[in-house]
């Protein structure tokens, strides 16, 4: 892809992000941070390329990639799981909670 078409995608995505994030209710701002954290680990794509590209490439690059895969995976699994856990806590009035501990 050419640089300009990538740039167009980027600029459009910034605007989409702007409007989508303003529509997030303030009560869910903490889960918002947790989930953005998880999805920004899509950087794992780069890490996977680095760690699978050993053939003809540098060994160091491969191991750096693998380390990045580990870090990004912590974030992906941790981020989505903790978001899920938090969101499960938000309840409406009617459902009477079972006696709390």
């Amino acid at each position, binding site marked *: 892809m050419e*640089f300009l078409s*990538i740039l167009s995608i*980027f*600029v459009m*995505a910034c605007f*989409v*992000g702007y409007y989508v*994030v303003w529509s*997030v*209710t303030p*009560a869910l*701002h*903490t889960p918002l*941070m947790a*989930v*953005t*954290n998880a*999805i*920004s680990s*899509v*950087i*794992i*794509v*780069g*890490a*996977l*390329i*680095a*760690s*699978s590209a050993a*053939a003809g*490439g540098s060994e*160091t690059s*491969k191991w*750096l990639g*693998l*380390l990045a*895969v*580990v*870090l*990004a*995976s*912590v*974030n*992906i*699994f*941790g*981020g*989505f*799981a903790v978001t899920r*856990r938090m*969101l499960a*806590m*938000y*309840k*409406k*009035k009617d459902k009477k*909670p079972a006696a*709390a*501990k």
Partner: protein
Amino acid sequence: MTAEAVTATPAWAMLAYLVAGVLFILSLRGLSSPESSQRGNRNGMIGMAIAVITTLVLHGVGLPLILGAIAIGGSIGWFIAQKIKMTAMPELVAGFHSLVGMAAVLVGCAAYLNPAAFGILDAATGEIHAVSRIEMGLGVAIGAITFSGSVIAFLKLSGRMGGNPIMLPGRHIINLGLLVGILGLVGYFVTDQSPWVFFTITGLSFIIGFLLIIPIGGADMPVVISMLNSYSGWAAAAMGFTLQNTAMIITGALVGSSGAILSYIMCKAMNRSFISVIAGGFGAAPEAAGGKGGGVQKAYKAGSAEDAAFIMQNAESVIIVPGYGMAVSQAQHALREMGDLLKKEGVKVSYAIHPVAGRMPGHMNVLLAEANVPYDEVFELEDINSDFAQADVAFVIGANDVTNPAAKTDKTSPIYGMPVLDVEKAKTVLFIKRSMGGVGYAGVDNEVFYMDNTMMLLADAKKMVETIVKALGH
């Protein structure tokens, strides 16, 4: 036509990455209401799975090692997510940000060492594309800043490092110099791709991330953590440019704008400019700041838990104002119990949340949700502020600066202009505070303490609420 032709992404993969990007947009969109939020989160997971599988199918060499790496990281992450206490969310998020930052740096280094694999090698010259060098340089720089900044934020939030701002002499000059140095080197990187340029950019960025966060403390942490959130997004976006990957670019832009908007909301809620937060040092000189007649001990009314229970039992409506102190003493469960007992007595109970209550955006909401407080009893500042005038009791627990009327009246106060909750308009204010000695993070005395209709409940927040619950039980 060699290196590039080999690594050009096939159309199906490009579409798959696009789908992943769209799913990420939907995952944030889901957060517009609690009902749709779980579905949103699932969309995010599906998007991530698509992005990972697509990449593995395209480049699947050495699969066992890669799957092993995912399994190790994934189980660590999953385990932490199950164990973490809700009060510790701010430091968890800061810690996760640092991982994204470090991953970006590692990917940048890997791309620098093996550019052919990333399709950024110019076949004609055997060097890395000029545009790619700028993208890579910026990506590594932002990643490194995110990493070291988040590590400091993590240490401060988890109490492993003092929360007070640490002020270096001449830090503005140092930081500015470093920033110019980094940008200059990124520019120079275009003409000279030797390792020293690349690794100096990385090193300097680690240092500036560290220096940027060191002088920021206490009440400004919500801004810091949102800002680092934003940086982690821009780092991913810069790497997305290097790899020409739409999923990464869309996600980076989403996360980047999300963090930026949250920083803006936090700054606005404190009536501070982003620049002054970044410059740091807020709350560094408590004695000197605001409040007339600082030295004189003013008279206040102290009350007991029984008094408080009696007043609230006989009230028609109670508005609870939680703050960071509630999180510190883990009082949210006792507080919900108190609310339940009051509701049984026919009292209308609601919660008022200031945007910067706590150490990260939305922190109080999560804690109350954890304690099973229904989210439709919890209101934001602008939705509930006019209700204080009709309320019988404002019950302030572990909040201080966000209730200080000086922000509306005293032009000399450091918090002047900050939107505050009008607790003083309620018929009675019950104010839980550990002792009369301490002041809030802004280091300002609060005249609400000394009003005739205020009763100070001096104790640990959780113990006090538990005693009130006991008193209500009788």
